[in-house]
Each structure stands twice: as structure tokens, then as C-alpha cells.
């Protein structure tokens, strides 16, 4: 069973539906007991980092999530949920992340030419880097759906895919049992579902 962490942020309905579509039982929860019983966790998120970070802190689940992730339970962060896995975030200030993966989250404006639109909204191809267990069923160049203005930097050792948007942006990371996708697998049609299927099959 997959537990989708509900701290009041994100399109949880679609995430739950996409796990169910690959045959995985998925529940939306804000109960640490349920997180403990779950086989794996998903940390979603959209919107501004500061608000989401505050909501997670105030949810009472932060220590529980950290303990479980450090204890080896698989954790997948999606979009802003991925950005929270890193040490620091520079969206309208400087904020501490969960520090499960070394690296910092910075504006894509520092990487791409000024004439490109921010946020990046749309389908872009994956360029593989370090090998990922999430990509068992997909191939390099497959398209996934992005909506973001920030991305993870300084995490090359853990980067499993990047995407080209006037520069190379971090698309996914993987460190032991902790995974992150900057794109939305739950909105990326069959390619996205294949990634979720691979995630539930890993452990």
C-alpha cells in the first residue's frame, strides 16, 4: 500500500488515481500510523515553497516522514515534494529543506536564457544520467509533463535525468530509498504510469 502524504497541498486526487491505475492500493493520509504501516510514501506538492514547507512543518508529520525515510522506507517526492527533499531552497528567501538528498533548489532563471518563459509548462523529454530504477519501463527521450520555476542543483551524484529547456534542468533524482521527480508522473500519460509502476515494484 502506498500512502500519499496529505498536508493540504497538491492534486492528491490525481496521484491516488494514478497509483490505482497501475494496480497499487493508495490512500491519502495525514496520520503517522498509516505512514508507518504503508509500504512506501509519496510526498506531493504544488505552489510556493515557503507555504508548502510551513504546511508540512505544521502537519505534525515531518519527523515521522524523516524517521521512516532514514529507516529505509521508499519515499517519492513529486514536483515541489521533490524540491523539499534537498538541503536548502532559494524561492523568495532561504528555507531549510528535509536534507534527505544533498543539494539546493534554485530558480531556473539562473540556468536558462532570459527570453524563455518561466514557469516551464508542458511536455519535455528526459535525458538519462545516473541509472534509475524508476525508468525500467521507459526509454530516453520519452516525454513527461513539467510545471515549475525552480529546480534542484548541486545534486549531480544523485541525478537520474535532466531535461533541456534552454539549459539542462534536473528532472529526477534517486538516492537509496529516496526518489524525486520534478515532473508530474500522474499527469504524464502512459510514460508517467510506467514510472509509478516501477516505483511500486522496487521494494
Amino acid at each position, binding site marked *: 500500500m502506498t500512502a500519499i502524504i496529505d498536508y493540504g497541498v497538491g492534486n492528491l*486526487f490525481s496521484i491516488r488515481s494514478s497509483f490505482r491505475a497501475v494496480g497499487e492500493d493508495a490512500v491519502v493520509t495525514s496520520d503517522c500510523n498509516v505512514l508507518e504501516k504503508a509500504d512506501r510514501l509519496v510526498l506531493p506538492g504544488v505552489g510556493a515553497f515557503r507555504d508548502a514547507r510551513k504546511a508540512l512543518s505544521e502537519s505534525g508529520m515531518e519527523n515521522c516522514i524523516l524517521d521512516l525515510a532514514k529507516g529505509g522506507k521508499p519515499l517519492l517526492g513529486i514536483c515541489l515534494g521533490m524540491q523539499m527533499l534537498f538541503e536548502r531552497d532559494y524561492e523568495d528567501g532561504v528555507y531549510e529543506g528535509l536534507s534527505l538528498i544533498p543539494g539546493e533548489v534554485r530558480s531556473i532563471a539562473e540556468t536558462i536564457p532570459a527570453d524563455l518563459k518561466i514557469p516551464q*509548462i508542458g511536455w519535455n523529454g528526459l535525458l538519462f544520467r545516473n541509472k534509475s530504477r524508476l525508468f525500467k519501463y521507459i526509454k530516453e527521450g520519452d516525454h513527461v509533463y513539467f510545471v515549475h520555476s525552480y529546480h534542484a542543483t548541486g545534486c549531480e551524484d544523485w541525478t537520474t535525468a535532466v531535461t533541456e529547456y534552454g539549459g539542462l534542468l534536473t528532472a529526477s533524482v534517486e538516492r537509496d530509498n529516496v526518489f524525486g521527480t520534478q515532473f508530474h508522473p500522474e499527469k504524464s500519460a502512459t510514460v508517467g504510469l510506467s514510472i509509478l509502476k516501477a516505483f511500486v515494484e522496487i521494494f
Partner: protein
Amino acid sequence: MITKRIIPCLDVRDGRVVKGVNFQGLSDVSSPVDLADYYSRVGADELVFYDITASSDGRKLFTDILRETASKVFIPLTVGGGINSLDDFDRVLKCGADKVSVNSGAIRNPSLVKEAALRYGSQCVVISADVKRVDGVFRVFAKGGRENTGLEAVKWISDCVNNGAGEVVLNSIDTDGVKKGFDLEMLQAVCDAVNVPVIASGGAGCIDDFVKLFKTIPKVDAGLAASIFHFGEVKIPDLKRELAANGIGMRLVEEM
């Protein structure tokens, strides 16, 4: 590189797709759920559901359909029609919408875009404008294109973007339904003024119209159409293949 998007628009009234549809391989062509699933399988990059229901019963039916669609179709869903308040945003977002498109609601209540962007993020707020030339000036029309608001369109759209709208759907009333191509002049004017994604709507009649759109205005991000897709006059796999052959970045899928 990021691809251009092809977006079918489904007008839904009392739980059914209007504008009639004519499809092979679909048992119930006016079921929004079946049609959305079909479009997703043939490679639509995103879907727009437009609620043109007047009654509250119809509105309830619409959200039921939205929920069912979002549980089966895993591409981005934009929902519009009857969005006048933050409660309306909340209602459709809880049912699985990813983005919410505001039209008349933003004209009536100029702070709606700003409030929605603060609460849900700009990525969630789409400004949809029906625009028509009046004495050579682009004007915003309300009430489904029936009422001239007198607002100058490019300025009004820019203001909405500055207030937090993260995407623009520009529907040209002048070219809508004519099927002789998108309104390139109007689109260029808006693309020059804003730096968020612009979705072209109104006027597509054939594959060439999309080729011309993306070739002439590289800043346009997506092309939206309804009846030509519903009637099968333009088939999405053919359209995307032809665009790709013309050097336009496309997400090509193998039909399942």
C-alpha cells in the same frame, strides 16, 4: 526541448459533450469521460473541459464527470465555465482539475485572478479571453462573446498576467468557426505583450493551420480546437506527425 501542445476542448452541458461528435471506435461519443480517454490515448497533450451548464443540477453532474475523468485520464485537465469565485476554484480542483480557466468571472471581479494565484499558485490560473476587433481595436467580450466590455484586450490580458495568471487562452471571435486559420495578428500582439504560455484558439480548419500557427509565431505554446477534432476532420496523430515533420517539437505517442 519543450514541445508544442495540442489541446482538444470539450464543451459539456448536462453531462454530455455538445457540438455533436462523429467518431469511429467510441461507443458513446457524447460521453465526456469516454471522449477524454480517447483523446488521451491518441496523443492529446492536455484537455480543456468547459462547463456550459446553467442549472445547479448540471453543475453537480459536471463535477461528477470531472472526477470520473480525472480518475481515468492521466494528462493535464483544465476546467473552465462558471468560475466566478475562489469557491468555484476549490470545487473543480478537488475533483481533479489541474488548472482553472477564468473568463467572465475575471471581468466582473478584477481581484479574482490575484486571489486565486495567491491561494493556488500561478500555474493553476488560466485567463481565457474572447477577443474581437471593433473599429480596428482588440476588445474583450464577455458572456460567451455576446457583450463588448470595452476593455482593450492586450492591456487587459497583460494586467491579468501581472496579477498572477500563469497561462493565456486567446480565443479570437473573428476567426472562431470560420475554419480558415488562427488569428495570427491577434496572437502575435498578445505574445509580444506577455511572457507566459499562450494557447491559440479559434479558426483552425485543417492541419496546415496548425503548421502555419507554430511556424509564424514560435512563441505560441499550444493550439486548441473543438469541433474539427470531434468530427474527425483533423485527427490528432496525423496532426502531430505532420507538425513534427515540419520541425515543430511534438510529443508523439504510439496509439494503444
